[in-house]
């Protein structure tokens, strides 16, 4: 019985993230539009887009291989599994121990690996430009992310997200400069990973500076829908991750009451809204970087991560 209950929670989490992700994207777009004094598309527009895309035929390039057709499913599955292992409103989910934070990062890495391959499959130069830039950005973002994981894991004594979240609410954690550094670095990495301004612009097409959109240029119909849904899921994942690691208040424990879980869900929605709002604010306030400024940006994130680990030893050794 307990197992069924746990499985239900796990399933609920998977459905919730899947359903919330387009809403979050729509919310960010809306806020950005309002900040620019535009009306903006309706909040539910991403859902309508997805439905419209799935109903359309797929127009496939003559040269596309079986891999090209399989990749949207692989990318979606990898991202979805990754995001369903991050505690959102309730920690200690039944399968949460099947992958720790390092494995979640690596799962996203798998998704990216295949997406970059998709960019090369049709054999056009736009796909190539996107893939090559994507892997360049990833080659810095992933180590930076791992350094952040190191810092957090050393503080919490675990790489298990539920344990980390539980530790972060406990009074022993205190005010640590390492945690501050890790937060800044995590935000920088999150911006890069989600292809947001100033690294990449999710709203452009046909710009020489674009990365993510160039990679998926040849996709259409249901394939494109899956890729866009994965992108939305990834954004949700990073905001949930920040929420779970740095503002873990309100996440219900494994044996919490119904009220606690409801409160956790409400708080989670609030966190998502806050994260989306801040992201929109940041994106509106800043200009996009040249591509070759990106390494310095992400290099700084890597340095911050490393610095956070080093400074940790100072506070640890006293």
């Amino acid at each position, binding site marked *: 019985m307990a197992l069924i209950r746990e499985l239900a929670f796990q399933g609920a989490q998977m459905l919730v993230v899947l359903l919330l992700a387009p809403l979050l994207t729509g919310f960010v777009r809306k806020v950005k539009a309002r900040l620019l004094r535009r009306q903006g598309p309706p909040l539910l527009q991403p859902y309508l887009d997805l439905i419209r895309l799935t109903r359309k035929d*797929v*127009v496939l390039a*003559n040269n596309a291989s079986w891999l090209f057709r399989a990749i949207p499913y692989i990318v979606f599955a990898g991202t979805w599994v990754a995001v369903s292992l991050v505690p959102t409103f309730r920690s200690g989910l039944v399968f949460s121990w099947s992958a720790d934070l390092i494995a979640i990062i690596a799962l996203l*890495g798998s998704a990216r690996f295949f997406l970059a391959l998709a960019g090369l499959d*049709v054999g*056009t*130069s736009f796909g190539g430009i996107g893939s090559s830039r994507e892997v360049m950005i990833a080659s810095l973002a992933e180590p930076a992310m791992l350094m952040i994981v190191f810092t957090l894991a050393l503080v919490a004594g675990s790489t*298990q997200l539920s344990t980390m979240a539980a530790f972060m609410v406990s009074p022993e954690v205190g005010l640590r400069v390492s945690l501050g550094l890790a937060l800044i670095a995590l935000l920088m990495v999150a911006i890069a990973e989600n292809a947001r301004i100033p690294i990449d612009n999710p709203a452009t097409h046909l710009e020489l500076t674009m990365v993510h959109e160039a990679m998926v240029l040849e996709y259409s119909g249901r394939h494109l829908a899956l890729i866009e849904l994965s992108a939305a899921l990834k954004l949700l994942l990073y905001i949930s991750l920040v929420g779970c690691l740095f503002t873990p208040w309100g996440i219900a424990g494994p044996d919490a009451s119904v009220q606690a879980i409801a409160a956790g869900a409400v708080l989670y929605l609030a966190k998502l809204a806050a994260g989306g709002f801040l992201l929109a604010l940041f994106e509106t306030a800043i200009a996009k970087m040249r591509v070759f400024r990106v390494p310095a940006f992400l290099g700084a994130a890597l340095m911050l991560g490393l610095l956070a680990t080093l400074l940790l*030893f100072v506070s640890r050794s006293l």
Partner: protein
Amino acid sequence: MMVVYALYGVAALLALAPIAIVLGAAPRTQGPVLGVATSVVYGASLIVTLSLCIIALLSLFEYSQSPSLVTLPLGLPWIGAHFRIDALAAFFLVVVNLGGAAASLFALGYGRHEHSPLRVLPFYPAYLAAMNLVVMADDAFSFLVSWEFMSLTSWALVVARHQVRENLRAGYIYLLMASFGTLALLLSFGLLAGPDGHYAFDAMRASHPPAALAALVLLLVLVGAGSKAGVVPLHAWLPLAHPAAPSHVSALMSGVMTKVAVYGFVRIVFDLLGPPDWWWSMVVLGVGGITAVMGVLYALMEHDLKRLLAYHTVENIGIIFIGLGLALAFKAHGMPLAAALALTAGLFHVFNHSVFKSLLFFGAGSVLNATGTRDMEHLGGLIHRMPQTAFVFLVGCVAISALPPLNGFVSEWLTFQAILLSPQLPSWGLKFMVPAVGALLALSAALAAACFVKAFGVSFLGRARTPAAARATETDSNSLAAMYFLAALCLVAGILPGFIIDALAPVTKSLVGFSMPHQAGVEWLSIVPIAESRSSYNGLLVFVFVVLSGSIAAFAIHRLASDKLRRAPAWDCGYPDSSSATQYTASSFAQPIRRVYGTSVFHAREIGEMPPPGATAPARLKVELRDLIWIAAYAPVAAAIDYAAEKLNVLQFLTIRRYLSLVFTALVLLLLVLAIWP
């Protein structure tokens, strides 16, 4: 008893060499007979290596408590040749023979395309035998003899295609580096044996040399075994020699022989040398971290498919040495559990790398056979022509890029878990060094993924860049069987890592006195290095989840929405269908990364030549890379030797009287030294 059976196997392999010569040499020109010789040699090698593999597995699981020993009346007269299979040797025997069996199976098909089989067939089984002997040797003499035998047979295989000038140069450099490495090993064994000359490993194990001497031995082993394994900066020969050999031999050299070198390092440093000093690990860790990052950066700049793979061997050796260095650090500070974790991670990676690197070299060999080129800039679109090879090669790429749910990820995950234990180390230097090495490891993993996107994407995806690539055909069934077998191993080791960790338990127990917690009993078959609240990973579940959610998505969309599909010309932002030369090439793919890392590491420069308006000359973009390690470490040595040879040249033209006087002075000087010696 096991070791005797194993030696029979080795003897069988050695006997195959003359059989190959006889079969191949008798009627010189007849193709069918050569075909028979190929089948006989590779078929017999396959059977023997498989049985050796079973013997090794048996000794690892059943008889690991008591090592099995034998002394043969060979070698030095009053010593004899000692052979022994303990847990460590058994594990490496599994690695060697698994790789050997896969290579033999692959060669059953691949070897038929060999131009001059007689230059390969006799040396191949001898090479396999030599690697087995190194792992089983139990005294310094047989170890070194087998080691040299291994170097020489592999050298013969490297220069098998002697018509190509590059191969000869590769063989020459390989021979030089191999002798240099053996010299270092010889010296280290000399120091270990001490003044009394105890050449048996048992005696060395019992006597611990003083600290300064032990440090010297460590450095010599790092040079000797490291040069064979391909540790930076001693890697220079590896990317030359490994690709020069026929592809199944390349797979053996990269996948297996480097592991034998790692075995040599582990055997001497963990087993024979006694308790480690705290700073040893810093040397090993530093070397490992630099090797990992440099190897992958070199690979990113490379367009030759097989050389790219060879540089990745360098990278993976770095990762293995990071694991070993961590194990040394923990062992030195009396943290056996952590040491067991780190050593397991390193050895797990040994196994993994031997599997996926062999797989990738087989794939590269099939591509080479089908298209006649190793240059990725001339490939492309092979996924349409060689779908099965493309699939297994893709599996290898995902595995080596350390992506879940395949096996490469598991060993790197274990290494990261070991790194996370480092704050408990008391020494300050290590505390700061280990996270930095962790950053290097993460960097190399990310760059490896980038590099394999390039390798797979440019050679297999896109459109064919040359007619040769457009005409490629799928490889034969034996080669495919070998590749599918290895690909399946990648998956199994990735989703059920607990069994391999358990198999490594006796090895770590014998080397650091502890082993990781038993994994087979953990529920749902996940792996838990220390405690479940701390970290756990379940490849099986992740794999099942990914497959399930992918299929559910596919099913739901196809059922509920649309499953229609239309073919059309590529969109490409509306540009009309262009020539396949407009695709991204390997060098253009690597260009952003070259700009980020290459300018400092390789002094990379781009030189654009734009002809004046009206001229018919094409515009050119040249990229200049400088191999700084070669310039700093090898070129001066070569120049010094040239200079010395030039100066000593006069000695060739002396009169007999002068030669005699030289000999006489030397004699007198030696006597003088004897007289003055205390």
